[in-house]
């Protein structure tokens, strides 16, 4: 498979695509995105290019390199288990699209 790299800030799309159209549709479904046929084709090209580029990293020998999850000092701060009041209800409800009986109301989901 041919590979392409970045030239300046642009990259060149090549036709050897690693993602199928069905995979793009599945990913869009998981992200709850509705795509037009033209968008599906475009994202297929772009996402394939990203994957292909990332795939180049697989060529590196990382056998003796420990995985890096973060470059920050690797230790989570911890807080004491002491409850504190949160936000007043009115504040939290203020931006909700719909509320009822002090709860957030959402459209019904059809199974």
């Amino acid at each position, binding site marked *: 498979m041919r590979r392409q790299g970045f030239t300046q800030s642009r990259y060149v799309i090549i036709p050897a695509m690693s993602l199928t159209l069905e995979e793009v549709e599945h990913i869009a479904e998981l992200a709850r995105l509705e795509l037009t046929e033209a968008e599906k084709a475009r994202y297929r090209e772009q996402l394939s290019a990203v994957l292909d580029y990332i795939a180049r990293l697989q060529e590196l020998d990382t056998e003796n390199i420990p995985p890096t999850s973060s470059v920050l000092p690797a230790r989570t*701060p911890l*807080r004491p288990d002491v409850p*504190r009041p949160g936000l007043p209800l009115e504040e*939290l409800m203020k931006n909700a699209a719909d509320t009822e009986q002090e709860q957030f109301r*959402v459209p019904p*989901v059809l199974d």
Partner: protein
Amino acid sequence: MTEYEAVIGLETHIQLNTQSKIFCSCKADSWNDPPNTNICPVCTGLPGVLPVTNRVVVEKAALLAAAMHAEIQPVSFFDRKNYFYPDLPKGYQISQYDRPLARGGYLDVPLPDGTTRQVTIEKLHIEEDAGKTKNDNGRRLIDFNRCGVPLIEMVTGPDLRSADEAAQYLIRLRQLLRWLGVSEADMEKAHLRCDANVSIRMVGADYLNPKTEIKNVNSIVAVKEAVQTEIERQIREVEAGKRIEAWTLEWDEDAGVLRKMRSKETEADYRYFREPDLLPIHISEAWLAHILQELPELPLERRARFISQYGLPEYDADILTGERSLSDYFEAAVALYPSDPKRVSNWLLNDLMRMLNESGKLASELRLTPDYLVEIIRLVDAGTVNTTTGKSLLDKVEASGKRPGEIVNAEGLAQVSDTGAIRQAAQQIVSANPEQVQSYRKGKTTLIGWFVGQLMRETRGKADPQLARSILEELLSE
């Protein structure tokens, strides 16, 4: 059908009993609170907020991991599990995936036939709970109070072999959680939730067949019934030459049937990735040592010790170690009455358990302390009070908080063993009831119980019953 055996694994979610939530300081327990009263920008996923991990969540999870003989990992990571659901305001759940807090481990579950089933643990991780969706006449209302409540997810290996064993595992797990004080483990309140993976195979086979997953089996009874129903269904299918498909099923507790659910996302669809807002959890050796100071003798170990050290029957040992404070109470009482642990056990099983059930208290909360209980047993041993009075003293001590001996003196409860006084009372009863005396003398000797009852009433229960009986028998046979 004896040629099949069931292969069952359980995935449990355990709500920890911390004061505050896992990543924010909102109050964790909202059981008695109105909807959306314990929420903040962090747990409702408002933009620009950052989670901060609750120290006690890590400590309680590590304590449980140690009790399950799991390997606590010095470094573990948080990951995002992505899915869309209205009660998940961030669009992802903060969980742990490939680097959980603990791996491995097991629980030895004693079975009713006297054998033990070792149930292995594949992994144990911490995560946040989602909110609650309520369907109200076709309207969907969301309460975020439960968002961010700390959970432990614990997945067993495919080690259970029947619906009963699955139920036994949950009973022992619930006992352990309460014993450690990490969860209230009240299944009614969904502190302990369970999904069951079920498959069948020929007895003795060492392979696994396709399994089904039963969601939401949230009581011991439901686990038993749902798993049994599914085992029977799978046997029928296989007998009919059909294949078992990897369905997700939902147990309808009211109808007692399993319903096929629309297939959920596969694991890859959750698109797990490292939680960028949280750093890894480091559990140093010093911190772990500090946490493990809280690790008590475990219920099954104590059960075995009660049998070997005190010579208790398995039945007694099982009940006495059902709950930690009861078993502590027993040991405190036996320390004061070492000559006969079984006698102490009888008082606990027959009488103290009744008081605990009626009052809803823990043994440690009783005003009738082990010290007072032993005093009552000794008063009965010495014949100062009879057994009936002794038992009535339990409630009197509990109600007043006074020493048993003090109550006996104040209320004049000491047993009347004075032959003269009892004879006098007996004579009165005999002369006041000529009809009964006649029936007795004509051969209806079972009436003796009635006469003794009259005498006990007359003496307000204080008479030595054996003495009363022999005096009455003597008078009636004249």
